Structures are given as C-alpha cells and as structure tokens.
C-alpha cells in the first residue's frame, strides 16, 4: 500500500521477542474478561510520547530486552525513546538511553538491552494507522487482541504513521530524572486479602528480601524470597484483580500480576503495588534485591499526585553534543539548570537554548 503524502512508515528490520504496540490500555471491558494490557511502565511510556508532542497515552512501541531495529520509509519521522537504560544507536553512532531525534528516511535506529531496565518505549510523532480493537491498540497476545493482528512485532512489519507537525532537525537527550528509579523499595498497600496471613507472615513479606525471578512476562512477575504460609488456606472465591496485585498461591511464592493479567482470580492477594511503583518493578532485572514497604492510601495518592505533576510540566530536551566526556565530568554538571520547560500541549518540546550541556552516552 502506498503511503499518502502526510504519511510515513516505521519498518521493523528485526525484533526480539516481546516487542508490541501499546497505548494506555483497553479500558472498560474488564467486566467481560478483557484485560486492559497497556504499558508495563506507564511513566516511561508517557515520557516518550510527550517528548514527541503526542498525548501521554498514545500508541508507542514497547520494546523488551530482546531489542529492535527500525527504519523510516517514505519520509522522516520524529521519534523518542525512553524507559530502562537501553543501548541505542543511529547509523552506528551511540545515543543516550532517553532521546528524541528525527529518524531520516533509511536511517537505522538500533535499540538493545543496556545496563539496566527491562522495557523501553519508542514513540513516533503522529497517529498510528492501524485498526483498533474495542477502542484500543494495546496488544494482548494471549487473546490475540490489538496491535498488529494481536501479535508481537516481527521483522518486516510496516506501521503507517500520519505525521503531526513537521520534524525539527535536532537530536537531544530527554531530561527525565524520574526514570532513574532505584529498585531498593517497592511501596504497597496491604490487602485485599492480607487477613489470610498471620502477622509474622506479613512481616516476612515486607522484610523480604525479594528478587524478580527469570520467570516473568507481561502477565506476571514471579518473586523469589521467603516462602509465605497462609493462615486460612489459599483458595478464595475468585474476585477482581488490579494491576500490581501480589497473589500468594499454595506454594507460598508470591506472583505480581502485571499489565496482561487475567481480570479475576482465586488466590489470596496479600498486597497491591502502588501505581507510581509499578514501572519501577516492571524494569527490575532478575536477581536484583528489593523489599516492600506498606504505605497508606493517602501516601499512595500523594505519590500519584507527584508523578502527575512531573509530567504536567512538560518534557525538556537537551541538545546533544557529539563528544564524549568522563562520567566524573558529567556528574559535576547540573543538567537541569537553565532549561526552558515546555508544556505537553506544545506542538513539539521546547529545546534548551540558554545553556547546552553535553550528555554522555551511558552504555
């Protein structure tokens, strides 16, 4: 199919397992058993979208540690990548892990697993020309919903983009310190079935230490740590499951239910990870240790409010100087100082012109 004049195409040259299209999720159908899906790390997904001037919940490519190579066809595209600390390169030149750039026709952007993180997001300015399922592009591969034919992206896939605005000829690092999230503590609200566990088991649950097992995907993260025992059995009459629910099946090994979780389930849920910490856990690599901290609803809501405030200020893009500096030098710089903030409603993010600091490629 020929692209119209205002369109360009993202072509997938190669894709590791688990690269999918995700918008903010397919909401409104949980009562019929339809999982919302949506991004594993909503904060990073929103950051990438805002950095190209899209609404925060727009459809973007979610990329796993399997990586992806893409190119632009039939015109250039304004793109941004944000998420875990992935290794990016354009034409073989390294880029910072959170970056906005113009992908020229034929240019190859390579995204690979880097030092940290499990997911990153490639947002493209404009609108994705792919049919929606129940109002959403979110891919749920287990039921074949959304995305391209309900499946993960593979080499040869072509995604038509109706471009918005005109690309600006600049490449810059996205200033998003909120994506540097240490894993050490994950905040939870206890319940809804914490009364299925004795006090000493709640204490053991909070103390951990826990790590994410290698057994993890978009549906669930299995945890490794102390084995929990139930006080009142482990079968409950099935009820609803929110994202971040920590269920404890009969073997006492907790499972965190993530974006592709089933809508209902029948194991006791000892706690639920708070919204602002879901992305933090999603980015965890197997083996990294953390503990849980119980917080009140009020504390969780305050954290949500802080996160919303961060994004409402808009995304700042730092011009990129193609030079390499030592980490010690870079650590001495205040990268936030002197930047001009944009608002999400701007056509494209404002670029800092008052003070340009070089940003090192951190792979």
């Amino acid at each position, binding site marked *: 199919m020929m692209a119209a004049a205002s369109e360009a195409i993202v072509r997938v040259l190669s894709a590791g397992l688990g690269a999918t299209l995700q918008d903010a999720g397919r*909401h*409104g*159908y*949980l*009562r*019929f*058993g*339809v999982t919302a899906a949506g991004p594993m790390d909503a904060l990073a997904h929103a950051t990438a979208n805002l950095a190209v001037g899209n609404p925060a919940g727009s459809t973007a490519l979610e990329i796993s540690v399997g990586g992806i190579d893409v190119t632009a066809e039939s015109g250039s595209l304004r793109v941004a990548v944000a998420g875990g600390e992935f290794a990016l390169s354009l034409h073989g030149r390294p880029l910072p892990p959170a970056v906005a750039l113009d992908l020229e026709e034929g240019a190859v952007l390579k995204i690979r697993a880097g030092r940290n993180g499990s997911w990153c997001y490639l947002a493209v300015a404009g609108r994705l020309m792919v049919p929606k*399922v*129940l109002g959403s592009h979110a891919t749920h591969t*287990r*039921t074949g*919903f959304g995305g391209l034919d309900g499946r993960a992206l593979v080499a040869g896939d072509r995604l038509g983009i109706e471009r918005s605005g005109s690309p600006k000829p600049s490449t810059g690092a996205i200033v998003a310190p909120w994506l540097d999230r240490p894993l050490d503590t994950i905040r*939870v*609200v206890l*319940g*809804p*079935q914490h009364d299925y566990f004795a006090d000493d088991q709640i204490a053991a649950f909070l103390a951990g230490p826990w790590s994410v097992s290698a057994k993890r995907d978009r549906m669930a993260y299995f945890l490794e740590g102390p084995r929990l025992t139930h006080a009142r059995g482990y*079968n*409950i*009459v*099935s*009820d*609803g*499951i*929110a994202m*971040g*629910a920590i269920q404890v099946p009969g073997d006492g090994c907790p499972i965190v239910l993530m974006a592709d979780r*089933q*809508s*209902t389930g*029948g194991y006791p*849920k000892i706690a*639920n*990870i*708070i*919204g602002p910490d879901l992305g933090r856990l999603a980015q965890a690599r197997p083996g990294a240790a953390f503990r849980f901290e119980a917080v009140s*609803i009020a504390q*969780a*809501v305050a954290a*949500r*409010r802080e996160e*919303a405030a961060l994004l409402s200020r808009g995304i700042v893009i730092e011009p990129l100087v193609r030079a390499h500096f030592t980490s010690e030098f870079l650590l001495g710089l205040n990268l936030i100082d002197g930047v001009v903030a944009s608002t999400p409603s701007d056509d494209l993010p404002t670029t800092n012109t008052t003070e340009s600091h070089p940003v090192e490629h951190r792979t």
Partner: protein
Amino acid sequence: MTLKVDPDPATASSAPRFLDAGEAALVVQFGDSVDPAINDRVLALDAALRADPPLGTREFVPTYRSLMIHYDPLQIDRDALVAVVCRATGVVAEGRGTPATWTLPCCYDPALAEDLDEAATILRLTRDQAVALHVQATYRIYMCGFTPGQAYLGGVPDGLVISRRPAPRPPHDAGAVLIGGGLCVVAPFAMPTGWYVIGRTPERLYAAERKDAFLIDAGDNLRFDPIDLATFRDLEQRAASGEIVARKSAV
C-alpha cells in the same frame, strides 16, 4: 476447595466490607461464598453504579461475591467513594433488574466433548446420564472473567460436582463447555485448563466484529440445548458469519 451454594443469612443482608486493592481499586465484598443472594447484591450495586457512575470511577467488575471498582484517586478519594457506595447499597438492596435467559446450543459428541467420558467415570455416571443432568439445569451467570466473554455458571446439579484436575490438561478449543469445582464455564478462547471439557458450543460469546461484541452479562440465566455433530458444524458456520445462534428470552 468447597463452593458453598447455601444462602448465608448473615452475609446476605449485612453491610458490605470495603477492601483496598491498591489506591485505585476498591473491593465491595458482600460475602465469601458462592451464593445467589450475595451475587444478587453485587449485581444490584453494579447496576446502580453503572446507571449513574460517580465522577472519577472507571470500571465496575462484578464477581461472585464482590464488586471491584476501579477509580482515579486524583478525581475521587476513597472515603467519598465509600460514602457513594453506602448510599447506593441502601437504595438498591431490593434487587436487580429482570435477567434474560439464554439457550445455548451445546454438542456433547465425544469428538468435541473430549473429557466427557473421563468425567462421567469419575462421577459414576454413564455419558448419557451426565449429559441429561447438564441439560436439565438452569444456570446463573455469576460473572465473566479470565478471558474475553468467558462465563462462570452456578447451579450445577449435585451429580456433576467434580474436583478440578490435580494438574492442568492441554488447551481446549474455543467454545468449550467445562465443569470443575462445582461450577460450569463457557470458554470462548483456547486455554490450558484444570477443568473437564464436557461439550462445545458453536456460539461465540465474544465476536469483535459483531454489534454486540459480548453476548451475555453477569446476572443472566442460561440453559444448554443439546445438538448433534452435524447441527454443530452448521451452526458453527453460521456463527462464523456473524449470526447469533443462541436464543435469548426475557423471563
């Protein structure tokens, strides 16, 4: 796991419990058993909230014994939501609307009913006795969940109450009708299962292209209409072309 179906007067009328599933979902729990009286209260609250959704609420998910309310805590705070729900439960305690009754064609031919003989043997029934029991009952759709359009049915006759398998079996086909743990399920998506496949319906409980993508909702009643293999193949083709082959009647 034992699934009680005896009405429990204490939970059928008492105030609900409010349980938090994080800061963006509230569970309104009316009891902890599978009980039509408890499920009635869940569905009544669900209907009342859907008719006039409080600002800041996002989705309502009715299950056997509780309603999960997904909400945006930056738009409505937890205490305000609890207050709204308390008012609604007071108003709607009288009951829910009149449920529809669905008649769903179901083929029990061993070619499709892969586990029927195995289940019948465990239940000390002949194949025909098991089918007769399954067909004579009227089921209540307690909830939908797990996969799109999947329906959980209560009202399984005592003779068909069977434990789940100790280990899951390989995936069944779409449209499978299964029993396990005292319940019956109609499963529109192929999935591995610990239940027993005792029949298959040609109807599609979920069809993306159909005007009513989801055929049935929690609270409806359902009966099975036995069909032979030739009829199944015919209805399967008609269903594939978008026709609704189940029948709906308002009682």
